[in-house]
């Protein structure tokens, strides 16, 4: 059972930041969908609904996604999805249900850095960056690999790149956690892949553009997989190749 001793809506990000530093068990509450399942005590729960943006802003060269943007908004935002060839929609549409996605936030998904995260997988392939209140802007890839900092994630930034791209995943049942997810962007002579649910954190791999089946075989040899309850190591390795071929096919269809 989750126990919260104090619930605070700070007046400023600075105040929120200071609260975070005060006690290592203090915690920012985002969608709370995962946090709720924990059996722990939080001295101070920090609610940033009035401080961190829940809007998607579009500029000439980028989309700036507030960390409080819900997965549902990420899924249905017309301009973002048009630019992204519906990768945003495809990456989250199978996550539990609309009621869940109306609560879960992009910031929460990114900050938690779960291995199976579909959001991170989708964002990694498209050179997304994130903005931390203290740490400033950094590539998502770097953030994913770095240890948990006591900082506040405020924005996720997606550069506007008019490139073919796609997201595919495999689930044991329709709304289960991804057994494996894969996203790809085609940049001139190079594919940029992100593969998650290995089941470890997603990794990024670049490969030269060549015949799909060859790319898929190469990718399989480069993505380390492990077994868990949802799939064996052997099956995940086969899925890397399979999903790669599907993603490349889909990418060409959307190009």
């Amino acid at each position, binding site marked *: 059972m*989750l126990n919260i001793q104090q*619930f605070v809506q700070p007046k400023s990000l600075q105040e929120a930041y200071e609260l975070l530093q005060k006690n290592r068990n203090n915690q920012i509450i985002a969608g709370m969908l995962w946090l*709720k399942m924990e059996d722990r005590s939080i001295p101070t729960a920090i*609610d940033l609904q009035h401080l961190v943006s829940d809007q998607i802003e579009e500029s000439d060269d980028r989309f700036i996604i507030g960390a409080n943007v819900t997965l*549902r908004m990420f899924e249905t935002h017309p301009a973002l999805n048009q630019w992204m060839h519906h990768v945003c929609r495809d990456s989250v549409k199978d996550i*539990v249900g*609309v*009621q*869940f996605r*109306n609560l879960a936030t992009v910031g929460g998904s990114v900050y938690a850095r779960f291995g199976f995260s579909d959001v991170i997988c989708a964002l990694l392939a498209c050179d997304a960056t994130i903005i931390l209140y203290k740490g400033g802007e950094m590539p998502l890839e770097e953030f994913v690999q770095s240890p948990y900092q006591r900082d506040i994630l405020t924005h996720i930034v997606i550069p506007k790149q008019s490139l073919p791209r796609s997201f595919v995943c495999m689930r044991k049942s329709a709304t289960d956690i991804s057994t494996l997810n894969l996203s790809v962007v085609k940049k001139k002579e190079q594919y940029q892949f992100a593969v998650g649910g290995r089941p470890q954190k997603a990794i990024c791999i670049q490969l030269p553009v060549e015949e799909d089946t060859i790319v898929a075989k190469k990718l399989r040899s480069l993505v380390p997989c492990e077994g868990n309850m949802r799939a064996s190591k052997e099956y995940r390795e086969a899925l890397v190749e399979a999903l790669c071929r599907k993603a490349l096919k889909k990418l060409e269809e959307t190009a």
Partner: protein
Amino acid sequence: MKITITLNGKRIQEEIANDVLLIDFLRAHGCYSVKRGCETSNCGLCTVWMDQKPVLSCSLLCAKCDGHSITTLEGVQKQAEAFAYFMAHEGAEQCGFCSPGLIMNVLAMEQELQAPTMDEIRSYLAGNLCRCTGYMGQMRAIQKYLHRNKEAAHETDQ
């Protein structure tokens, strides 16, 4: 802490525990339609509206609802009647334990989607689990409900 919530159109100002979940607050306030079927945000039984959007009340801190409006099936009885008619005429409520959550999401879907296809309906409602019906009867009821005005108009034409 003290919160102000508009529950089914009524303003409530109340002292609450910091960690009380919305579902427990709602049941304590007589909204017994709100059911809990799991602890892992998977079943959709506890679906209510926050500012008209369907959310899982089991996963939302009541504290975060301060200043927001919450609607449960108790607050949309009239609106829900029309859909209930079609559910009852398919026998698709069965045990009825998941019905309130489903109804709240169907009504929200009707607000949000324009003339959804069957696939879009299935997608929108994927987070509403039901173990009794196999979903077919629910889908028949939903289709008939969404087309009710068309059918009524059609009947008048004849």
